[in-house]
């Protein structure tokens, strides 16, 4: 599907979906509560078939966190970027690890580096950092006592 066709098709799945102008691929803002149901539909609708989650990450905007999901269909070769705004003090979103298995590792990484809680994640533990690490290093207000660059 082209970008325009996707933009016309997606509101059928979710009314409240909002699209952003510009960008390389179609950008859609989704509320955290709607995400899980939409994700299932994105993967399972034959005309969309977003089966490849090629990037999942988070951005700290100081006032809030934004989860960014880059999706691609290996059948139709169209891409979609989903963004979910999360509260910074209590960031919670449903996991998609059961839909795209690659999300399991990505979400563990985001959990330790940004502090996002993925609800119903099968194994939400730290992946890269030591178990006793405090703080979320990729947040903007994280102060590293030994900053190699500022030294």
């Amino acid at each position, binding site marked *: 599907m082209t970008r325009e066709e996707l933009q016309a098709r997606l509101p059928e799945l979710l009314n409240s979906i909002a699209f952003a102008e*510009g*960008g*390389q*691929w179609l950008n859609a803002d989704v509320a955290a509560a709607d995400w899980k149901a939409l994700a299932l539909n994105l993967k399972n609708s034959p005309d969309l078939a977003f*089966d*490849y*989650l*090629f*990037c999942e*990450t988070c*951005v*700290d905007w100081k006032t809030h966190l934004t989860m*960014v999901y*880059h999706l691609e269909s*290996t059948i139709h*070769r169209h891409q979609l970027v989903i963004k979910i705004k999360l509260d910074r003090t209590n960031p919670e979103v449903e996991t998609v*690890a*059961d839909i*795209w*298995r*690659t999300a*399991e*590792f*990505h979400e563990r990484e985001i959990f330790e580096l940004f502090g996002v809680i993925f609800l*119903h994640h*099968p*194994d939400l533990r730290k*992946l*890269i*950092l*030591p178990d006793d690490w405090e703080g979320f*290093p*990729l947040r903007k207000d994280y102060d*590293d006592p030994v900053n*190699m*660059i*500022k030294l």
Partner: protein
Amino acid sequence: MLEEVGTTEQGDLVINVGPQHPATHGVLHLVITLNGETIKKVEPHLGYIHRSIEKMCESLTYRQFIYVTSRMDYLSSHINNHGCALMVEQGMQIEVPSRAQYIRVIMDELTRLASHQLWWGAMAMDIGAFTPFFLSFREREMINEIMEETCGARLTMNYMVPGGVMFDIHPDFCKKVKEFNQHFKVKIDEYDELLTGNIIFQNRMKNVGTLSKEDAISYGCSGPTARASGVSCDIRKIFPYDVYNKVEFKEILATEGDSLARYKVRLDEMRESMRIIDQLIDNIPEGEYQAKTKAVLKLPKGEFYSRVETARGDFGVYVVSEGATTPYRIKFRSPGFSNLSVLDHIARGQKLGDLVAMMGTLDLVIPDIDR
């Protein structure tokens, strides 16, 4: 819940492989739960070489951050640099001179060859064949010398910069690349003869660590690992960058999805890489090797994502820019990270002795996974 996360019962044995283990080729730590000799669960513990490159990049300018990426997948450093340069060029709308595009693609393919050569030798050594390691390092040395002459480095190249390449190629570059190609065309058949048909080798690889097409996509696998399971995912074909749309090459696919298929895909990929180099090496156009760019690069406000095909798969650079000289947030989508996540899935129910064959054919580079 996805499925029962492997539970430890009485009689199970938990062993640690790594972080210091010759077959992990880096500091990877696997906690393996065994029942007899059968693997029940593989749990990777990462972070032994985590340098927080993403955080570091937030304080580095768009010229500086490229050098850090050579230290991620150090066997594909040219291609990592390429991905970053493409991202900056896309954001700043820089037109790259065609001479630079040709040089870049040739360098990418030489890197892929060197990486696959190292993989071939190391993987064979891991499963007990010692000779291939010496053979592959003999040929890899030729590539390293070519690289050294032009880039001044043998591993962390830092040769590709936004707008082109840092210096022009060495006067002997084309001659030496052609010599290498001539030489390696014969040698790769020798590789094949030595190892591929060997019955012991085949028994160690066949039906070991089989990965289905659906799982490969779902786990986000890319590169030869996914192509061995029949997933067409070559970024060079799907989203051609630089001069990849001007060359003819086959995307190597297999359907078996086992370790032997992954092995064969990589071996055939080397042949395709040589084909690409053959088509380009005589046609490098004259002209500038670097576009004129400003001394200080500032990306406009927005988001940029560039994708390249490294020796391990789909490498992505995702940048959120606020219009400053440094990125606001940068994310490196490293192929090794997703490829490693599938290890637990393919290893369950297999024998412990086969773990090395599975790890070897996933072609893991640990600094690429930890970043």
